[in-house]
């Protein structure tokens, strides 16, 4: 008796005991769920497993003007629906991330402006966006703004290349010719050249103290090198322009109104959060750093480039990463206005048709989880790159 009581007061035994208890509880709970699920599936006549992915879907998971993965109503399967959904989600998330970053940085910097009117406008934007649900913003952009736009025949005409109306934005589509290959090669060359240039410039800055405008030169290279290559090879990129025919535009890509509304809502909403992140990052650079930079005679532009931005970026990047993740996850709200993202077409329609709820929800979650992990890995790498090198 005494020995058993002693055992009970032994810390290691207690830890082991509670862990065995936890494992048993989790295992029993798992068995309980598994047992119920298999009986329920049998009762509902649903075949578990991923065979349903090869069944013909029989519905169109994307709009005709934006069928970029070549989905075919008669032959494409639920697997193709999954791919279309992922493609459309990524199309929304990537463009959204780029635009939201630009808007967020501009607004964050403006909020720090000494000009009271400008900082007031920026604060009003941030507080207005952040305290109202994203879903409401999506509905406002879709029903309130985009659907109040002009009819197809009265589209806003932007230099005969893009046409905006209440149903879609028609934009030119690049045609897949040899020019694309040359363009890619040109971009690759420019990338390699930019990396070399950066290393050379850094070395020169470290040894000789001479500064070189790497960013501007690289940007110029990215614009010019592919063009030179295209000109030498005698190719040119051809675009298919949208043309009004009857009551509709043909040719080109037609980004549906739901896409535009989603994009606008996501960019403005996430932009407000990014603005706060940027503002906090810049404020985190201590004023002593600025005084020190001025005292060694740096110009204002140099202070920003060499002192403020590198230090602010370190503070900005981790929360910026989570904003990118939020934007990607929030793109799943597209179902509210019928944009054909992954959740809408796969988790919504495919689930309704096949009933394989477990598998479909697991695949959807796996997709979002892997995107989260990929973005985190990339941003961690970038973060390590800008982090303080302790000497």
């Amino acid at each position, binding site marked *: 008796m005494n020995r058993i009581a002693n055992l009970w007061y032994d810390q290691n035994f207690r830890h082991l005991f509670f862990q065995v208890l936890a494992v048993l509880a989790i295992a029993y709970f798992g068995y309980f769920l598994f047992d119920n699920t298999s009986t329920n*599936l049998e009762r509902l006549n649903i075949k578990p497993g991923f065979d349903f992915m090869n069944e013909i879907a029989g519905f169109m998971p994307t709009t005709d003007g934006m069928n970029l993965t070549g989905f075919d109503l008669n032959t494409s399967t639920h697997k193709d629906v999954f791919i279309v959904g992922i493609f459309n989600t990524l199309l929304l998330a990537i463009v959204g991330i780029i635009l939201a970053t630009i808007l967020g940085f501009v607004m964050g910097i403006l909020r720090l402006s000494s*000009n009271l009117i400008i900082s007031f406008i920026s604060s009003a934007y941030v507080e207005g966006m952040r305290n109202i649900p994203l879903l409401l913003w999506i509905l406002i952009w879709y029903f309130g703004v985009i659907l109040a736009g002009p009819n197809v025949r009265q589209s806003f005409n932007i230099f005969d290349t893009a046409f905006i109306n209440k149903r879609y934005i028609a934009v030119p589509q690049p045609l897949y010719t040899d020019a694309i290959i040359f363009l890619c090669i040109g971009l690759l060359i420019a990338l390699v050249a930019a990396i070399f240039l950066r290393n050379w410039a850094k070395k020169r800055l470290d040894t000789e103290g001479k500064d070189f405008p790497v960013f501007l030169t690289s940007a110029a290279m990215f614009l010019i090198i592919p063009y030179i290559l295209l000109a030498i090879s005698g190719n040119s990129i051809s675009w298919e322009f949208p043309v009004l025919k009857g009551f509709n535009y043909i040719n080109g890509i037609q980004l549906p109104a739901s896409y535009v509304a989603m994009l606008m809502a996501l960019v403005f909403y996430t932009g407000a959060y990014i603005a706060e992140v940027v503002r906090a990052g810049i404020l985190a650079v201590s004023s002593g750093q600025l005084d020190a930079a001025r005292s060694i005679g740096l110009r204002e532009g140099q202070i920003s480039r060499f002192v403020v931005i590198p230090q602010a970026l370190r503070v900005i990047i981790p929360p910026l990463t989570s904003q990118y993740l939020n934007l990607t996850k929030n793109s799943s709200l597209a179902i509210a206005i019928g944009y054909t993202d992954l959740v809408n077409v796969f988790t919504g329609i495919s689930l309704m048709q096949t009933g394989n709820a477990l598998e479909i*929800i697991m695949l959807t979650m796996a997709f979002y989880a892997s995107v989260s992990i990929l973005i985190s890995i990339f941003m961690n790498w970038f973060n390590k790159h800008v982090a303080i090198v302790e000497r």
Partner: protein
Amino acid sequence: MNLNETNTAATYPIGQHPSMPPPAAERGIIKWLNINLFNTWYNSIATVLGLYFLYLIIPPAFDWVLGSATWEASSNKDCRAGAGGACWGFIRARFVLFMYGFYDAESIWRPNLAGILLVALAIPVLVPKIPGTRFFAIPLIFLYPWLAISLLVGPIKITLFSDPAFLVLWIVLIISLVFLGFRGIKTNNLAKRGLGFSLAYVAIILIYLNWGLGLAPMETNRFGGLLLTLVLAITSIVVSLPLGIVLALGRRAESLPVVKYFCIGVIELFRAVPLITVLFMAVNMIPLFLPQGYSFDNLVMALIGLSIFFGAYMAEVVRGGLQAIPKGQFEAAASIGLNYYKSTGLVVLPQALKIVIPGIVNTFIAMTKDTSLVMIIGLFDILMITKSSITDAKWLGLEWEGYAFVGLLFWVLCFSMSRYSQWLERRLDTERRN
């Protein structure tokens, strides 16, 4: 001498000149404008552009909201006949729907009473100037939730507790549990005291819920509008905070690897996926998980999904606070003989939670906003009510009024929460400095 040249009216001995007012450009509103709005040429341009931007937005918006608004309307025809501004008659005509959804019109006093009680109990707790915080906090935490449940949904029948045959048995059990608790007080036995009173409390609550306040039952699918939004937000706040604390503590339990990795798995899984997939999971998968014949209604499933999802976020916020507590605090607590539960509950958690109040409130705000996602699984929260109201043929074309109203409601809710947290943060901060 310069001094005499500028002021020829009188001469003063050196050093006796009275103070002069600063030049016009260096004082008052001109100086202020100079510093804040026109200090450089580009700032001047920005000021002018900014003012023009505000001029473009504010007067028309003001005119739309108040100037030429229509306050009385029985359909959108009356709105079109108005001065062209907002048609608030729409909101007034549908106000009950916006607030209570499809809740029985004669029973609206029930949610009203629940709301008044909540405000009456919560304000003394939230405003530190009002004395007797504990006097209000204890009923708020231990009595109010059950009172609110029976006010809102009426009695909840639990077979084991509603059968009168069992009732005698339960009463005997409760009496003996209370007796056990008093024995615990007498003998200073914490385990007996805690076990006796808490089990008796649970049993009393379970029996109470069967009869409630004797009100008629109300199906949860009649909940809607602001009522549903608040029920979802408050319930998931109340559930997710303790859940998050437990998950965070589990994640830091180094000596219990099974518990630790289970908690990490739950936290990371729910943080990696969008809320909408969690809600889909709740609605589509929970029915599969339950034995045949058992089911939850949609409201409960949405609450489960919301609570677990935000519990994971809350766990990370709380973990941040736990990490900020120096190790010495744990060691000091252990050295005066406190066990794990006491050192965590009395020493570590109070300090950790105080640090992360801003993070917790930010999660509360996110929760309040994200309750609106339940419209996608078919619940009629205030956003869904708005969406369906503006597609009603009688009120077509009034999107902006509906959105402006709901937007304002959410904005006031969330903005006041964030301001309260900033104020609380400042208050706690000064305390620490003293």
